[in-house]
């Protein structure tokens, strides 16, 4: 599924989806000209959806001009084997971008928990982050 289709199914508003159709539309108008019977009598039906909370948009952080000479944090969120994958990525950076400083960190707590000290450290010492999620 592409992003546009996916967001459309979520009911995201046109501000997010310039041009995309909303997920929950009116059904196609019934064909006219038929003799009324129980089969084609017209009814209204209520929308069963609850009220979703509004979404506060977060602007994405400015991008780097280049990663050369920068410090990149590789963050392992703790899913099984995520660390092994990131270590392979570190090797790749060493080979292909030797001037990039790569810092590996395992996020504290279980995968559902936040880790503010780590975010602080990355903000202070790092220029970019790659986070591995899933297994």
């Amino acid at each position, binding site marked *: *599924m592409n*992003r546009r289709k*996916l*967001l459309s*199914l*979520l*009911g995201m*508003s046109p*501000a*997010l989806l310039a041009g995309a159709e909303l*997920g*929950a539309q*009116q*059904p*196609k108008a*019934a064909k006219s000209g038929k003799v009324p019977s129980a*089969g*084609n*009598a017209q*009814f*209204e*039906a*209520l*929308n*069963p*959806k*609850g*009220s*979703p*909370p*509004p*979404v*506060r*948009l977060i*602007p*994405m952080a*400015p*991008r780097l*001009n*280049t*990663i050369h000479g920068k410090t*990149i944090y590789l963050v392992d969120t703790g*899913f*099984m*084997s995520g660390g*092994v*994958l990131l270590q*392979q*990525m570190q*090797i*790749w950076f060493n080979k*292909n971008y030797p001037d990039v400083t790569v810092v590996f960190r395992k996020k504290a707590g*279980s995968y*559902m928990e936040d880790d503010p000290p780590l975010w602080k450290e990355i903000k202070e010492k790092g220029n*970019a982050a790659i*986070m*591995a*999620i*899933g*297994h």
Partner: protein
Amino acid sequence: MATKSFADLAKSNASKRGMPHIRACFTPHPVWGKTAEQLMAYVEGDDPVSGKPLMKEIIDGLTVPLTAEDTKTGMMDVNVGPPVFGPDTLDNLQTHFLNNGMTDFLPVIIPTPEKVDAMLKGTSHHPDEVIGKMAAGAFAAWTYTVKQVAVNAVMAGCEPEYFPVVLAVASSGMAALGSSTTSFAYSMVINGPIRDKLNMNYTIGAMGPFAQPNATIGRAWTLVGKNLGNGGIPGDTYMGSQGNNTNYNNIVIAENEKDSPWTPFHVQKGFRPEENVVSLFSGEDIRQGHGARRAGVLENPMFDDQISDIFRTLTSQFDALVICDPLTVRRLVEQGYDTKEKLMEWLWKNTQRTAKDYRDSAFVYTFHYPRALRGEEPYATWYKCPEGTLIPYWPKPDNIVLVVAGGQTNPFFQVGNLTYRVSVSIDKWM
């Protein structure tokens, strides 16, 4: 960077949290169980979603300048469509509800204004009262009114007199389709005189498709989870890899209080016998007692021992919900268990396993181990003791729930690996 299985989830969740254009990249799935060499091939290969080299995606993600859309701030409303669909034919509306993910893919009663008004007569609460918040996992919760619950109750096929039960369930904020890669099961136990008032079935075929309130109230919980809690969207708010067949009805159990010599479940939870209460459970599954060792002992069947035997393949992450036919209960009473508490105590003490088996369990590793590391008891002790030490399955006897249902054609029992969550008064929603 996420694995391909979570592509839809990662994108939609970033959107809901305010960053609809997040630059996510994807590796093949799974990462778990792969060797370092295999994972290096992932790193040097393509992003399976975009088809572009993974590392190029990562570097581009960090360096390509942002567009105007990427830097937007502000509040965005999420649109769920118009308040009313139609007018149109019933057939077209049926198709519309189906195609827009508002159903469980089975036919619904079309929630016309008249039907919804009739449903609303089933409660004294105001249609516009906001009664709860629900999320199917770690998502932003949706809110809903009495009227929105009524729409879903109509769709499920409920009668207006069932409505207080559905409202009580909805007010708990608990969704029947929780998002996890594990495919969870849900269950509700109903107690009080309302069982007879609504003609609920608690005798032959108690947990099967044999009565309208049992069938439709259980189904309504799933529709409420989908439409009011935004749950059940595969790849987004539902990630259960294999799915769970009990999610169609959510295992509705009306307790057979009449034929049970024990205290009804709601009374155990502090309600009066004449109160109407719905109690919600969630967990893994439900299974039958037939596989128990010694289940065929004829002259003197020991159901305590059989139930304990079935317990030995449950996970400690979830509790035990035992559903006994009244014949089984009568026999247990003859054995000396004249209260539920006595049997709970015996089962708790006598269902044990080694610390090694405990620690080898998937859920224990994921959920109990971090708590043990923080020093939380009894998990800390259970992680410290030698491998061969026998430990109970659960921290206390209360983790075992006993409920009576069935038509007394056979002294059988079933066991759910399900945890008690909450009991809600139905009377408050009348």
